[in-house]
């Protein structure tokens, strides 16, 4: 009997969160969906829709102006994608949608090989919307559009009445249409999720924790740490190479020379991720649990990264030649951010980093 009483006393003393705290965590996660995820997908969808429209105009009547507008719109669409790239959660993980939007990094060089073979084949059936959807992810999404539009020394007249130009035009129109529909489906599925199902999505990302606060912690921790690893390893270290041997073609979107612009957009978005809403932001939460210093360090590091990347050229190659010291400083700041999350934040939230899909070759 004494043992039973003792058990209940202990149970009573065990920490548990209040209803207000539970509501806070739920509201924060729901805000992410409504104020960050859906709006960013919508922005990207509209930009890609315009890209598809411009592709049709251009292919109907190729001109230099038309080509430049297309390229500009590709950059605009890709940049808006960069603002949501880090949130690999929910509907985008269905049916390889993420990879169909952007298959990168292409560690094995398969994308280029498949593209070369496709163009060499001139198989008409491969250009239809239906077959694009069913086909390889490397022949869908932003990267293949970039390959067509940003080919070195490309002139608009390559699209005038040549077999190659006509073939590529079909691809431009239908690949961009496929991309547009992909984003539309993602938005629709997010909108159709009720609050309970939305929380379940975050729960799956949070290693299926049972407690809402753990779901919240793990989601923020895993999303940030995995993405920082991605940026460090693939967007920066891979093209920087080792011992001064650069591998510039490993940088993201090297053909359109937007690699650094991408990273800036990533940090703008991460900063929003942490500061979404005055009352329910993660930064604000850290302050309420007496972690003001860490909150400030995180926020300030993100802000300074946005400023620093803004001071660089958008192209990785130009920065290697002219701004290597600035690039190295940015890398150091990202390492610092990584450490803040992986060490300091992990202790506070009691979380350890696990394996992720970027492990391996």
């Amino acid at each position: 009997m004494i043992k039973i009483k003792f058990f209940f006393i202990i149970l009573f003393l065990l920490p548990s969160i209040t209803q207000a705290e539970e509501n806070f965590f739920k509201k924060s996660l729901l805000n992410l969906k409504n104020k960050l995820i859906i709006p960013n997908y919508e922005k990207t969808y509209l930009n890609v829709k315009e890209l598809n429209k411009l592709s049709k105009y251009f292919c109907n009547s190729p001109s230099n102006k038309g080509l430049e507008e297309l390229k500009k719109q590709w950059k605009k669409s890709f940049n808006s994608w960069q603002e949501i790239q880090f949130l690999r959660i929910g509907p985008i993980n269905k049916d390889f949608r993420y990879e169909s939007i952007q298959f990168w990094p292409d560690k094995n060089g398969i994308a280029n090989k498949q593209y070369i073979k496709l163009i060499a084949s001139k198989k008409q059936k491969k250009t239809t919307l239906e077959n694009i959807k069913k086909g390889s992810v490397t022949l869908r999404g932003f990267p293949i559009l970039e390959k067509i539009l940003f080919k070195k020394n490309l002139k608009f007249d390559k699209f005038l009445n040549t077999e190659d130009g006509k073939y590529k035009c079909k691809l431009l129109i239908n690949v961009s249409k496929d991309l547009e529909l992909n984003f539309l489906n993602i938005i629709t599925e997010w909108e159709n999720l009720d609050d309970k199902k939305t929380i379940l999505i975050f729960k799956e990302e949070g290693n299926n924790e049972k407690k809402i606060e753990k779901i919240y912690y793990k989601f923020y921790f895993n999303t940030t740490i995995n993405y920082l690893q991605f940026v460090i390893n693939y967007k920066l270290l891979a093209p920087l190479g080792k011992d001064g041997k650069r591998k510039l073609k490993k940088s993201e979107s090297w053909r359109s020379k937007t690699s650094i612009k991408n990273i800036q957009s990533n940090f703008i978005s991460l900063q929003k991720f942490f500061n979404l809403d005055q009352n329910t932001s993660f930064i604000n939460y850290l302050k309420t649990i007496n972690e003001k210093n860490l909150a400030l360090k995180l926020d300030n590091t993100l802000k300074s990264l946005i400023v620093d990347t803004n001071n660089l050229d958008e192209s990785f190659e130009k920065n290697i030649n002219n701004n290597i010291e600035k690039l190295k400083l940015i890398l150091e700041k990202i390492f610092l951010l990584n450490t803040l999350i992986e060490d300091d934040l992990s202790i506070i939230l009691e979380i350890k980093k696990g394996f992720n899909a970027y492990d391996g070759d």
Partner: protein
Amino acid sequence: MKKIISIISLLAFLSSSVSAASFSEKEAKAVLVNYSNIALANYQDALDAAIELDNALNVFINNPNASTLAIAKNKWKLSRAPYQQTEAFRFGNPEVDEFEGKVNAWPLDEGLIDYVSSSYGTESDENGVYAANVIANKKIKLSGKTIDTSKITKKLLSETLHEIGEIESNVATGYHAIEFLLWGQDNNGTDAGAGNRSFTDYAKGDTCTNGNCDRRGQYLKVASELMIDDLKGIVAAWKVNGSARNDILKDPIDGIRRAFVGMGSLAYGELAGERIKLGLMVHDPEEEHDCFSDNTHWSHYWDAQSIKNVYTGRYVTTDGVVVKGASISKLVAKVDKALDKEILSKIAATEKAMTTMVEIAESSNNSMKFDQMIAEGNTKGKAIIMDVVNSLVNEARALEKAVEKIGLPALGEDLEGSDSLDNPSAVGA
């Protein structure tokens, strides 16, 4: 709430500032000695199989005919079983990773080595030697420089051609270069059939097909000898007082963590992600591991076995000798028997899914090889593959739990390119 978090933080801090591992250094060392013994036995088996392959290749090159080619191909396939079982030693052992790129690099732009079909294309803006065809050409050009390829030697392959231009798909050495030279390209796409190179590609005189048969034979011979040299090196590294053994034993607690990194990275990132799921995304037979020979199902099977060997601390050599001893499984069971049981059941589930894949691939009636399974619209094939992927993911998640349970530090320490992470200035020149 704030008070609770503060107490939790303090406890976490206190527990992390003293040794958190649930096992002693002595226990860790015992496990790692067994781990090293398994690595040694395993790499020795791989070396022995490579020597048998080399013997068969010599017979074939000296007397090319359908029979000697078939024997050589069979020896190649047999050599994959012990090698693939070594892959769990990757990712946590830098010396293994250094060596691996020389013997098992994949995929390759095979046009660097030999003739290819027209569908391969003639040039790539990502690889200046995409279709250089070293066998046919005594000089090749890259970035304006001329490279003398008149003599096909170990030095040419290993020091000049392999990853030339810092491009990883310029694979000039190892299992897959040899595979390509034996089978040729698999031009069947996602239909049935492997590469179908004729033995006459090595014939002497007028019966030689596709030209340069002598150079082709020379390339094959040299690639095989080079692979043996590389395997000898890694065997030596795992012997008592060898460099790889000493390295993992120098800090036994960290050594256990590195063993987990190997298992988890292989299960989740490499196998489940890169090697298996990728095929479903791109529907391309080039994205299957043993793409020329259609042997991929076996390579994946043995890779999964590799993880089991390391976790259970048990390896069965090609001759049937059992190498076993202290194991990671026992370390986990000491702290949480149920978790150890869970991990073992997840490993068994992977083995079952892999066995299904192998049985279907090897079936004498309506077989379906990996490159057929990944074909567009093949729902049955997709289901088989996703079973494998999901079981590997579950295995990795269970291993993650074990890392935490036995009190090891976070796995983030072994991020790829960690040298550069520790020393950012190393990336500048």
